[in-house]
């Protein structure tokens, strides 16, 4: 698997898009830090960008890479390589190179700004870790979608729908249900609903770390009580890990049964 990972990784590292993605984060980091001059505010703005953009790029890159490397895959299938290693290798190759663009692209301006001497280092690290998690999750979901759909257009369509649902629609439905059922106790429901969507979970985790949960009002207090504890933190990390493991398992399972 490592050999396949290496080839996919270097293949992507040579592609123009990795650089575009990297430069985008570099620019974003520089602009936010040096025009804003406030580390905490920069982290919040970054959070808003990352929460939406990382899943989008992860899904699109994942689907695109799978369809574009069809020839490479067919070539590999006739070689003495295990099937699951081919697909897992490609998946980790994509997810790793995307995470690297994110971490290095954002990391560099922050390092130059002097993040190591600032109290915001943990907020910032959490931001990068959740960003990496979101990349892993959405690239895996993209691979599952691509494996299930021979038709490129359909695959792309489903991938975009998935992103739209997770990043936008889910929140809308969630809010509407909160308004609709406002007479009932909703603490448990909102906790569970947040835990079930990796995008929401990441957002809440970062917001709570930034100590601005007061902005979230009453729910903020509930969340603070839950996520602020170590049990809550471990549980949410577990949830994010689960969101990586389950699609990865599906990639492996679907790869085993597919005809080429």
């Amino acid at each position, binding site marked *: 698997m490592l050999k396949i990972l290496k080839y996919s990784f270097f293949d992507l590292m040579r592609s123009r898009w990795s650089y575009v993605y990297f430069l985008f984060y570099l620019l974003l980091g520089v602009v936010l830090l040096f025009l804003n001059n406030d580390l905490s505010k920069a982290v919040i703005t970054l959070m808003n960008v990352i929460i939406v953009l990382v899943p989008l790029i992860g899904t699109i890159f994942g689907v695109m890479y799978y369809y574009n490397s069809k020839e490479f895959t067919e*070539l590999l299938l006739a070689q*003495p390589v295990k099937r699951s290693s081919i697909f897992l290798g490609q998946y980790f190759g994509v997810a790793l190179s995307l995470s690297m663009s994110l971490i290095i692209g954002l990391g560099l301006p922050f390092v130059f700004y002097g993040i190591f001497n600032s109290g915001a280092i943990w907020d910032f690290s959490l931001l990068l870790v959740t960003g990496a998690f979101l990349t892993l999750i959405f690239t895996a979901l993209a691979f599952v979608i691509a494996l299930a759909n021979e038709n490129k257009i359909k695959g792309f369509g489903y991938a975009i729908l998935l992103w739209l649902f997770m990043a936008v629609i889910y929140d809308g439905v969630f809010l509407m249900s909160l308004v609709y059922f406002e007479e009932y106790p909703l603490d448990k429901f909102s906790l569970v609903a947040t835990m079930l969507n990796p995008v929401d979970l990441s957002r809440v985790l970062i917001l709570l770390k930034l100590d601005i949960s007061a902005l979230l009002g009453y729910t903020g207090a509930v969340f603070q009580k839950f996520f602020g504890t170590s049990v809550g933190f471990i549980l949410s990390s577990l949830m994010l890990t689960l969101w990586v493991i389950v699609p990865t398992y599906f990639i492996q399972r679907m790869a085993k049964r597919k005809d080429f």
Partner: protein
Amino acid sequence: MIEIDNLHKRFGKNEVLKGIDLTIDNGGIFAVLGPNGSGKTTLIKSILGMVVPNSGTIKLNGTSIKKNWEYRNDIDYLPQIANFPGNLTVKELIKMIKDLRSSKTADDERLIELFKLQPFLDIKLNNLSGGTKQKVNLVLTFMFDSPLVILDEPTTGLDPISHIRLKQLITAEKEKGKTILITSHIMSFVEEIADEIVFLLEGKIYFRGSIPALKTKTEQSDFEHAIASMLSSSYA
């Protein structure tokens, strides 16, 4: 030795292989023939494990290929359409495949020389002509010394000189005692090199035997006509 027992494969509603029983002994050139859509490529891909059969077993030298991948170390495969990752150069591609099968010694330089590929080594695969791609494909296939060689339409796009070199190459491999499985639509090519033919029709084996036996059976003196007569009698 390849043993195939009652192999079935369906793609959706389309039943491509309807119970193939085939035993191929070691050594010799076997041609798998049949009209378009008769299941030649599906049969070959099943042996390679690229297509997962619905039922039936395939054994290579006594071991089942199911849930197994190491056996592909003993197979060299030439795919029908040379689809390569386009942004690699010829040299990088050869290096990569050698790296994936690092347990084997590769004989790529002799083959590059044979097909005169030196001027193309640093060119990206996207920018190669169909015939040159096919030559690269041949180099990748023949550079390892595996006991079983599977060639799916090896002559596609080749010029006459390369065609002759390919025939010499196949004959030389046969003399080493290898088993070679070929599909082709060029009947003169098949007649010249094949020891035995396997004729597939609508997902079943319709005829298996030597070329003289086929000619006697169909009462035709010409190989191409013999095949045609088999086709028309089945269509009638």
